[in-house]
């Protein structure tokens, strides 16, 4: 089959998928009567649907798009360093936080993560700092999703990148603005089902192309770039591709352990507790005693889908290093850097060989992106309209006013993300990593300590959220710049070599320390939910 016909079939599959999604969005509009239905579905959504939605929100385009590209270009280490520990983040969330979030939701009308922090620690500033952290993280993380959509839609429909990315946001904005949480739950159950199908297909296709795992890895391991000098993207020597230190910090340096501590121990596992787009969905669970299924389903769905797409990065590397292969130059010619790997695989390769499978894989990637974007639009809008303006400065809004302003704020967040998508940006996988780390640094320490340590205070929690927010944001912005424009040449790789930990991990550690130290030194003032959680602490009269 020629490429044009293959692309037509893949595009037709995507058009049907988009019409289905938009139809559900329009239908769900009738279910939204107020802000409660819009934000948390009236707390009547079955836990299995929210487990699937949360898993989809966690996998997102970075795993289905960014990681395969990163693995193809720079080494196999990324799948275990980031993927593996994330699966235990779901049960950790239920063990430490989920029950209290859900059983206190009705009494305190909780809809967002800053809501929970505000009711436990008390005061408005913890809400404001948490909301600012959420907004910063939203922009980076969502931009990664739109980049993925822009690249895929652009390749599939022959659209310019910005127009394709704008089309992607328009689709998710329409269904989530109309149908809110209910539309998100239904659509993302479908999206995640598609992701699971696509992942299983990906493994089957990859295995048949490579002739088995052993053959794939030994072919890559024995590959030596014949050209001499620096190898083009995708043609790194096999030994270097398998060398974790080389991939992370350069040929001679050691530092893989820093990445291990940053991501495996802190950001991927315990850091998942702070991912508002994933955890906030617990407020919508119908029965609190069913939360265990969220933890189990989230972990299992994540474990099925994320490694499968990472495997496609390894498969593409194998295809690129076969004798006489032109794969590496074909991917480079797309002009998308490492982000071109999945676009090449699904559109250029499968479009010719098996367009139906290619269409399903593309639907899986886009489903992953949309399942995250809609959560970010809701969360970013809520951070502005509810957490900052309504809760801190305009408490007298009616529910109708709140609902209207939530929708307007979501449109503003969407517009900001579209504008940022137009600027040249980093790789998808790093954009998402920055967003994920910012969420973890800002929210995870305060959330984890809120339910596990009775020594927390209002000042401690507020200071901890502020420190986590500022440390992660400043380090990200300053130290990820190129070495030539940063003090002491500490940009990007230099930072990792010198300080070993990721910016978000520093934010998380310093956030924990700040909460403990400030809480020990300040007045024992707390919010009302604190005394429900720690019943043995007497409530001040």
């Amino acid at each position, binding site marked *: 089959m020629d490429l044009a016909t293959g692309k037509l079939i893949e595009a037709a599959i995507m058009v049907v998928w988009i019409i289905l999604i938009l139809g559900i969005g329009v239908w769900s509009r009738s279910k939204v009567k107020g802000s409660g239905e819009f934000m948390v579905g009236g707390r009547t959504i079955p836990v299995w649907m929210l487990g699937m939605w949360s898993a989809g929100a966690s996998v997102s385009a970075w795993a289905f798009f960014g990681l395969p590209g990163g693995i193809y270009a720079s080494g*196999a*280490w990324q*799948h*275990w*360093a980031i*993927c*593996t*520990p994330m*699966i*235990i983040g*779901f*049960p950790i969330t*239920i*063990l430490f936080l989920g*029950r209290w979030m859900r*059983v*206190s*939701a*009705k*009494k305190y009308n909780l809809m967002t993560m800053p809501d929970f922090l505000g009711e436990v620690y008390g005061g408005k500033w913890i809400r404001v700092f948490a909301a600012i952290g959420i907004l910063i993280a939203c922009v980076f993380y969502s931009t990664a999703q739109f980049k993925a959509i822009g690249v895929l839609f652009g390749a599939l429909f022959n659209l310019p990148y910005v127009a394709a990315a704008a089309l992607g946001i328009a689709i998710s904005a329409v269904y989530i603005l109309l149908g809110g949480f209910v539309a998100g739950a239904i659509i993302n159950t479908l999206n995640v089902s598609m992701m699971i199908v696509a992942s299983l297909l990906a*493994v089957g296709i990859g*295995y048949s192309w490579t002739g*088995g*795992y*052993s*053959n*794939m*890895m*030994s*072919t*890559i*391991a024995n590959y030596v770039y014949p050209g001499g000098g620096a190898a083009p993207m995708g043609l790194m020597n096999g*030994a270097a591709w*398998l060398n*974790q230190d080389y991939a992370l910090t350069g040929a001679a340096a050691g530092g*893989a352990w820093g990445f291990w501590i940053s991501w495996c121990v802190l950001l991927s596992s315990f850091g998942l507790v702070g991912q508002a787009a994933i955890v906030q969905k617990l407020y919508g669970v119908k*029965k*609190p*005693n069913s*939360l*265990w*299924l969220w*933890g*189990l389903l989230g*972990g*299992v769905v994540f*474990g099925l889908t994320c*490694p499968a797409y*990472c*495997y496609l990065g390894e498969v593409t590397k194998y295809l690129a290093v076969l004798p006489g292969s032109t794969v590496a130059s074909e991917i480079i010619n797309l002009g998308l850097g490492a982000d071109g790997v999945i676009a090449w695989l699904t559109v250029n390769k499968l479009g010719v060989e098996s367009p139906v499978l290619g269409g399903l894989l593309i639907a899986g990637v886009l489903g992953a992106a949309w399942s995250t974007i809609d959560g970010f639009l809701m969360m970013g809008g809520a951070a502005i309209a509810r957490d900052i303006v309504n809760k801190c400065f305009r408490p007298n809004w009616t529910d109708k006013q709140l609902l209207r302003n939530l929708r307007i704020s979501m449109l503003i967040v969407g517009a900001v993300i579209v504008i940022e998508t137009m600027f040249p940006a980093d790789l998808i996988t790093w954009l998402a990593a920055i967003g994920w780390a910012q969420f973890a640094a800002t929210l995870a320490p305060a959330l984890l300590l809120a339910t596990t340590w009775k020594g927390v205070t209002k000042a401690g929690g507020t200071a901890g959220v502020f420190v986590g927010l500022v440390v992660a944001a400043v380090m990200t912005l300053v130290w990820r710049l190129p070495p030539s424009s940063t003090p002491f040449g500490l940009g990007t790789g230099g930072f990792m070599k010198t300080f070993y930990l990721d910016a978000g991990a520093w934010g998380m550690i310093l956030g924990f320390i700040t909460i403990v130290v400030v809480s020990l030194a300040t007045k024992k003032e707390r919010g009302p939910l604190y005394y*429900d959680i720690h019943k043995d602490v007497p409530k001040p009269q």
Partner: protein
Amino acid sequence: MLELLLANEYATLILVDFLRGIYSWGLPSTWSWGTWCVLYLEEFIFWWIFPLVSMLWWRSNVKKHPELAEEI
């Protein structure tokens, strides 16, 4: 030892290879039965055992103490 991690999510594919009569994992390190056992155990702890055991424990605990899952 870190090479174990490179393959940990794909232990099932290595098992499929094994069932096809290919006794290797393709990495430069020497492959052995012990390696495969450690690899598979490590994968199961990370990917399946912890979520399964911890969430089933949570479920049984809430069944024993239903007040834990009541709205406050």
